């Protein structure tokens, strides 16, 4: 089977939306607030996947093409081009249907309200932020404690029932896509802040606490939690741990893995262990570091201790307009070369500016070829001179307008515009794929030009929003599904873009994860031995293969035969990196 062309990356169909709040605490998970191009978006937002499915399934005119194409392991991959189903249609082998005794056992352990098996309820959990893939779980449980999670997992382990953990369901790679024969363990009832230890600058949380609520809880004490993914209003700390979430400020402050001190984890056999500890360098293997970013495949974090930082004394933010992304890229290079590590450098091209400005009125210049949002923070004595230097370097590299955020309100407006970028695409395009690739930052100019040319060749527009400081691109491929063949072209272009990233020495994903979305692209970056080593490690944690199975690593069922498909990484071919 031709692996690279048909089975690799699928761009994320639309995205999450800011300011969505899962108020109920149970059920009604974050429907990925998809399809923001449609006027009924606001209504759909509050009803999650279920309504969207109803729309998709029943009224093809509203959302055409959702005929439910099987994509292995029972996933109906909707929104995909027709007739390109992958692998055998059917269920994962070796797992039994859930027995009544099993359901009764969980119901008696968790209480009747915490175990859902009504088809209508189950359907609300059929997808996460990667809405193109949908699977209805056999059972949904809403445990309220570590003990209840362990009870559920022990029962699953005993019966060899697959399970998948889910936080807010904002993930963009299908990490929380349910298993058709399995249990979906939703952490929405575990949202307590367990301890705030200001003296030791740390906080201990249950996994369902939202990212932003961590910082809010200590805002009055001048502290905050650094990782700030764009979905921070709704996404949970548990999900952040699973995905090793970053955010705009990870350029200076790092990712989730740099900010989590300890985890209580229910392992796939139901054992409860602590990874990490009180001290920053726990003795032995860095199991905490290995778990963070493992996309829910090694266990379920039930208690998370995060590091808090003191708010920096000074923060300065500017928006710099440039004639083109190339000019903006030069500015980024100049800033980095000057030895400045800004808290964030974000870039938007003109299309992205148009979309964000229309969506939020953040005050971006509609006629700018590109804009940079640069934020510098730290001690006042350092911040002032660094900010002046950034201003000077922007002017020297061709900035046409510099707009300083005078205060917190203005800064918030600028960031609101940037954070809304994915959802805002609905303002300028009916449909779009979100991509997430990484390149060495110095290849920025070249890669953007090639993406532009590739878009022209495909007859499609590509909007670019990205974390320019660390080379993490989010090209958004715009298309209109009503136009015959356009979805296929868009999907192909999105895949070509991420392959270009790997070719340039980068990565298939900087923050959205592999999940179900990109597992078949893994052989682009890793050879059979690399993947076999990863699989060995996974098997040490989950020997039965029941914890979020069929994700992250490529499987023959989904991706075809892997061996022999590897081509050396270009840096390997150039002798920059080696493997013997």
């Amino acid at each position, binding site marked *: 089977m031709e692996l690279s062309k048909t089975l690799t990356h699928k761009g994320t169909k639309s995205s999450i939306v800011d300011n969505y709040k899962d108020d109920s605490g149970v059920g009604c998970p974050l429907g990925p607030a998809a399809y923001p191009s449609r006027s009924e978006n606001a209504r759909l937002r509050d009803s999650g996947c279920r309504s969207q499915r109803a729309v998709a399934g029943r009224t093809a005119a509203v959302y055409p093409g959702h005929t439910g194409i099987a994509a292995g392991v029972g996933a109906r991959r909707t929104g995909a081009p027709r007739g390109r189903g992958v692998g055998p249609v059917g269920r994962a082998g070796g797992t039994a249907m859930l027995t009544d005794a099993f359901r009764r056992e969980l119901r008696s352990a968790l209480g009747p309200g915490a175990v859902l098996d009504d088809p209508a309820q189950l359907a609300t959990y059929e997808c996460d932020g990667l809405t193109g893939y949908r699977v209805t779980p056999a059972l949904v449980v809403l445990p309220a404690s570590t003990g209840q999670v362990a009870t559920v997992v022990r029962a699953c382990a005993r019966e060899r029932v697959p399970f998948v953990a889910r936080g807010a369901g904002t993930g963009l790679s299908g990490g929380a896509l349910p298993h058709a024969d399995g249990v979906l363990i939703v952490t929405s009832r575990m949202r307590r802040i367990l301890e705030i230890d200001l003296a*030791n*600058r740390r906080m201990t949380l249950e996994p369902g606490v939202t990212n932003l609520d961590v910082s809010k809880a200590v805002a009055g004490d001048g*502290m905050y939690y650094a990782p700030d993914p764009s979905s921070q209003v709704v996404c949970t700390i548990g999900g952040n741990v699973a995905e090793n979430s970053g955010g705009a400020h990870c350029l200076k402050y*790092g990712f989730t893995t*740099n900010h989590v001190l300890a985890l209580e984890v229910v*392992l796939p056999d139901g054992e409860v*262990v602590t990874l990490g*500890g*009180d*001290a*920053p*360098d*726990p*003795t032995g*293997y*860095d199991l905490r*570091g290995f778990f963070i*970013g493992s996309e829910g495949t090694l266990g379920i974090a039930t208690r998370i201790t995060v590091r808090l930082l*003191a708010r*920096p*004394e000074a923060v300065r933010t500017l928006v710099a307009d440039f004639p083109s992304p190339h000019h903006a890229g030069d500015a980024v290079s100049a800033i*980095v070369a000057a*030895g*400045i*590590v800004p808290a964030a450098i974000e870039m938007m091209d003109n299309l992205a500016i148009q979309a964000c400005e229309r969506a939020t009125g953040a005050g971006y210049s509609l006629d700018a070829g590109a804009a940079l949002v640069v934020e510098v923070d*730290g*001690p*006042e*004595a*350092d*911040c002032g*001179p660094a900010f002046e230097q950034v201003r000077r370097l922007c002017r020297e590299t061709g900035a046409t307008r510099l707009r300083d955020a005078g205060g917190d309100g203005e800064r918030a407006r600028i960031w609101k515009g940037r954070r809304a970028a994915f959802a805002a695409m609905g303002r300028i395009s009916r449909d779009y794929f979100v991509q997430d690739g*990484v390149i*060495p*930052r*110095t290849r920025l100019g070249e890669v953007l030009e090639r993406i532009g040319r590739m878009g022209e060749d495909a007859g499609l527009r590509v909007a670019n929003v990205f974390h320019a400081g*660390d*080379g993490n691109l989010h090209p958004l491929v715009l298309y209109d599904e009503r136009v015959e063949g356009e979805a296929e072209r868009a999907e192909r272009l999105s895949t070509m873009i991420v392959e270009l990233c790997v070719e340039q*020495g*980068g*990565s*298939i*994903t*900087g923050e959205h*994860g592999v999940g179900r979305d990109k597992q078949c692209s*893994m052989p682009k*970056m*890793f050879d059979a*031995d690399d993947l*076999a*080593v*990863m699989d060995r*490690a996974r098997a*040490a944690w989950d*020997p039965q293969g029941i914890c979020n199975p069929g994700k992250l690593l490529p499987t023959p069922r989904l991706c075809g035969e892997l061996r022999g498909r590897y081509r050396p990484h270009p840096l390997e071919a150039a002798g*920059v*990196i*080696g*493997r*013997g």
Partner: protein
Amino acid sequence: MRRDVLRPASAAEARDALAGAAASGRSVLIRGGGTKLDWGGAVEADVELDTRALDRLVAHNAADMTAVAGAGMPLARLQEQLGEAGQWLALDPPGTDEGATLGGILAAGDAGPRRMRYGSVRDLVIGSTFALADGTVGHSGGLVIKNVAGYDVTKLLCGSLGTLGLVTQVAVRLHPLPGASRTLRITTDARDAARLAAGLAVSPAEPSAVEWAGDPGGTGTMLVRVEGVREGVGARTSAVQDLARGHGLDARPLGGEEEAAAWREHAGAVGGDDGETVARAGFLPDRLPEVAGALARAAAEARTGATLTAGACLGLATCRISGRDAAAHAATLTGWRRAVEGLGGTVALRRRLAGVDQLADPWGTPPSAAALMRALKRRFDPDDRLAPGRFGSWLGGAEQAGQARVARRAGRVDR
């Protein structure tokens, strides 16, 4: 015991060396500069695999602020080369001047005082190439700072002390060398040091290192480093002085050679001399006074000497036990460990006076995740040939490893 020594000069040679050892069922001790060979349990191995010929700076992508180097490259030499571009790998572990290598620092999960600002080696490594006990060569991560593709296998190797595999090449993210640095010296005891440290940790002065070293029951020296934009260092130095004054302490600024000498002396205090026993504790940062007090009491009871060096904002401290004999050293270690574990912390043995091993466990009470470590060890090194005994009872002791080897040689274990 006389060991065969192998010195692979390429990843391929390293793979062949491990595959060869696997074929003959021999156990392997991987070493770099040898500055941390005593950490953890004593290892008995048939073959020594010296990484120091894997010493090339493979790539320095200055504009991307990344570098790739052979695992055997000494950190000091790497820093020299990176420094020419105004960059550095933001690590300052104590063994740097004694030849500590990049791979050894990774395998030990080591860091120095500036861990406070930049993190440990685990926070700075973005990818690695490694060879497992059976010669399988793999890599994880990549050359970009932001990357979540696949499992971060490199993290498992951090702190593995040569028990899971051989790291042959390491990719790291770099930082710009700070424009200026200033260090303040404060004479105080551990209790006041901890109080001042708590203030410094949230101070707008944003120090990059806050260390204390001295007599756990008496006085010592605190070093506070601020670094960054040249124009800012003066104001931040004053801010530290003001904060110290608020605690009734006098902070004297050091610059230039005086500053460098103060940090050299501090690094020297961590390693320990021959005849000493060295152990490392991890605990909640605000427990430093209790941790220091417990060491003073344990040393007094066993009538040994003891000094303590602590990352005062981090919750990490290293003690040196001196004087008398192995039994007394073991008694101090055990007494201190009991107290620190009682506070929720850990104490691990780093080097020791001969004989201490027989009287005290090198690692202490196994963590709840020890079974997980064993499961990983079984998958990566099923015959327990890499650094057998290193993690003592946590992975199964040297004795068990020895038995496994004997059984293997006798052909009684199906491999």
